[in-house]
C-alpha cells in the first residue's frame, strides 16, 4: 500500500488535476491514491516511486500510440532536411520516377472521377463549380482519405466528373454535395521533376506532390505534351503503390 498521505504536492493550486487546490486533492488521496497521477507537476518517475502505474479505470479511453516508436530508430532524430533534392522514395521507402504537380491555373490536383453510382451525378445535379466530397474506393486508388474538390467538368450521360482536389475549407464554408465512394479514373498534371524520359504508353511509378500520405502511385501515361515547364501528362489505369 502506497503512503500517498505523505506525498508532497507542489502547492501551486493550479486546478489541472480537476480540484481547485492541492489541499483538496490531498484530502482525496487518502481514499483514492491513484488520483495522484492527475498531478502533472510530479514527474512520472516521482509518481511511480510512490504509486506504481495502474490500469486505467474500466471504460477509460486508451492511448493508441503505445507500440509506436519505430523499432531500431535512432534515439535522436537527424537534422531537419530543408529544401532537399528529391530522393525518389515515397514515405514508405518505395522508389518512384517523377512528381506529379497540379496545373498552376487549377485550384488543386485535377482528377477524372466516376462515382460508384454514376447516376448520383444527375441525382445531385452536379455542375461546374460545385463543391464535392467523397472517398476513392477500390479500383482504382483505394486511398483511405476523404477528398474534397471543386467540379470543373460534368458529363451527365456517364456520370464522369473532372474536379480539382482542394482542402476542406471550401466545403466547410459553402456546403457540399457528397458523392459517397468514387473511382479515380485519371489524373492530369505537370511533371517538372523526373528522373527518366517519359513516353506515352508506358506505366510509371509517380508521387502526386499533394498526396496527403506521400504514397507513390502508378499509372499509364496516355497523353504527353512537352513544354518549357516540363511535361503535361494524363495518367490512367491508376493504382496506389
Amino acid at each position, binding site marked *: 500500500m502506497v503512503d500517498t498521505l505523505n506525498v508532497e504536492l507542489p502547492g501551486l493550486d493550479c486546478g489541472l488535476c480537476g480540484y481547485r487546490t492541492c489541499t483538496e486533492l490531498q484530502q482525496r488521496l487518502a481514499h483514492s491514491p491513484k488520483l495522484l*497521477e492527475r498531478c502533472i507537476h510530479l514527474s512520472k518517475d516521482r509518481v511511480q516511486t510512490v504509486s506504481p502505474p495502474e490500469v486505467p479505470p474500466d471504460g477509460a*479511453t486508451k492511448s493508441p*500510440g503505445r507500440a509506436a516508436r519505430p523499432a531500431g530508430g535512432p*534515439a535522436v532524430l537527424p537534422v531537419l532536411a530543408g529544401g532537399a533534392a528529391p530522393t525518389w522514395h515515397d514515405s514508405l521507402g518505395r522508389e518512384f520516377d517523377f512528381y506529379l504537380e497540379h496545373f498552376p491555373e487549377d485550384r488543386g490536383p485535377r482528377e477524372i472521377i466516376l462515382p460508384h453510382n454514376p447516376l448520383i451525378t444527375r441525382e445531385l445535379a452536379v455542375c461546374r463549380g460545385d463543391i464535392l466530397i467523397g472517398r476513392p474506393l477500390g479500383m482504382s486508388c483505394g486511398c*483511405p*482519405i476523404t477528398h474534397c474538390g471543386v467540379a470543373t467538368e460534368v458529363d451527365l450521360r456517364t456520370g464522369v466528373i473532372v474536379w480539382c482536389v482542394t482542402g476542406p475549407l471550401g466545403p466547410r464554408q459553402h456546403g457540399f454535395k*457528397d458523392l459517397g465512394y468514387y473511382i479515380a479514373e485519371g489524373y492530369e498534371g505537370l511533371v517538372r521533376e523526373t528522373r527518366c524520359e517519359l513516353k506515352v504508353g508506358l506505366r510509371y511509378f509517380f508521387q502526386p506532390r499533394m498526396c496527403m500520405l506521400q504514397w507513390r502511385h502508378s499509372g499509364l501515361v496516355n497523353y504527353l505534351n512537352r513544354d518549357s515547364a516540363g511535361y503535361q501528362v494524363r495518367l490512367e489505369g491508376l493504382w496506389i503503390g
Partner: protein
Amino acid sequence: MVSRIYFDNAATTPLDPRVREAMQPYLHEHWGNPSSMHREGRQTREAADIARRQVADLLGAEPDEIVFTSSGTEADNLALQGVLCSPEVRAGHAITSAIEHPAVLACCRHLERRGTAVTLLPVDSAGLVDPAELERALRPETRLVSIMAANNVTGVVQPIEELIGISHRRGVLFHTDAVQAFGKLPLDVRRLPVDLLSLSAHKLHGPKGVGALYVRRGVSLTPLLHGGGQEGERRSGTENVAGIVGLGTAAELARAEMAAEAARLVQIRDWLIDSLPALIPSVYLIGDRYRRLPGHLCLGFAGREGEAIKLLLELDALGIAISSGSACSSHHAGQPSHVLEAMGFDPPRARGSLRITLGRFNSQHEAERFLELLPGAVAGMRPMGHFAPTA
C-alpha cells in the same frame, strides 16, 4: 435556431467582453503614439506599461522582461533567430522537438540554411519528450533548446521543469513556446526559470495580432525588426496599443480565474473521456491521459481516420466547430500531422485525428449536446474496416 458550439479554442478564442471593453478607449479616444512626449503619447504609453505589468505578473517576471510582438509566431522567431543569428553563434547548434509548432520548426529550417545545426528530439507514444534524450543531444556548441510547454495538436504538457534544469546545467539557454499554455498552466518563471517564453493573446480570449516574448534579464537578442528601437531596442515598430491593452487585460483575467477555470474544464474534459467509449467503441484518446491542457482532447476513431474531413463537415453542419489534428484545416489538402507521426502513428492515422478544445465560454451542457450528436456523425463515416481501437 440552436446556437453553435465552439470547441476549437486551441485555434483561437472568442474575445472576452471585459477585454473588449478595456481595449475600446484605445481604438477611439486614445490614439497617441506611445513614443511621443505629449499627453496623447503619454496616455498610451501608460496603458502599454500597465499591460506590460499585467503580462509580467502572470509570469512572475519583471515588466522590462516583456517584449510585445505581433503574434506568437513572431515571438518564436525572435527567440530563435534572436539567439542563433548573432554573428558569434550562427554556426552553433540548437535542439528542439519533432512536435513543435511550425513557427518553431520552419524557423529552424531557415536557421539550418544559414549554418545552424538543428537536432529534433523524438517524443514517445504519449507525446512526451524524454529528458534523457535532451541530455544525450546536448553538445558543447549547443546554444539554445526550444521545447514547447504544451502541444497544439494533442494538448500534452511537456516536463519543462526537468528540461530547463538539464539545459541550464550545461549552460544552454532554454526557450519555450507557451502559446497554448499561457494562462492555462502556472508558468511562473521563478519556479520554471526559462530564458525565453513565447505567448499570444488570441489563445486567451484576447485580440489577434498581438503576442509577447518573455526575455530573462541578461539574455541578449539580435532584433528581427530594425527601426525606431521600441521595446527596449528588441522589437522596433509603433506599438499596437489597443492589442497590447487587450493582452494585458486577458493576462490579468487569467491570473484571477486560472485555477478555478482549469478545474472546471478538467471536469468537463474528463467527463467526455469517460463517457465516450460506451457511446463510440472505436474511439481512442491521443496523448497522455493527464499531462494535458485542461480543456484539450485529441481523439481518433479506429478504422475511420480517413473520414475525419467528412466528420468535421458534418459536425459543422450540426452546429459544432471542432478541428482536425492535422494541417488540413488550411486551404490546401494537408499532410499527415507531423505531431502524430512523431508519436508513431502511421500516415493514415496521423491524418485523421479530431481536436476538441474547450474554453472559458464552454459549458457542461454543451459537452452533453456534443455527445448527443457525435455518435451519429461517427456512425455515418465510411469505415476502412471494423477494427477495435489499437491495444
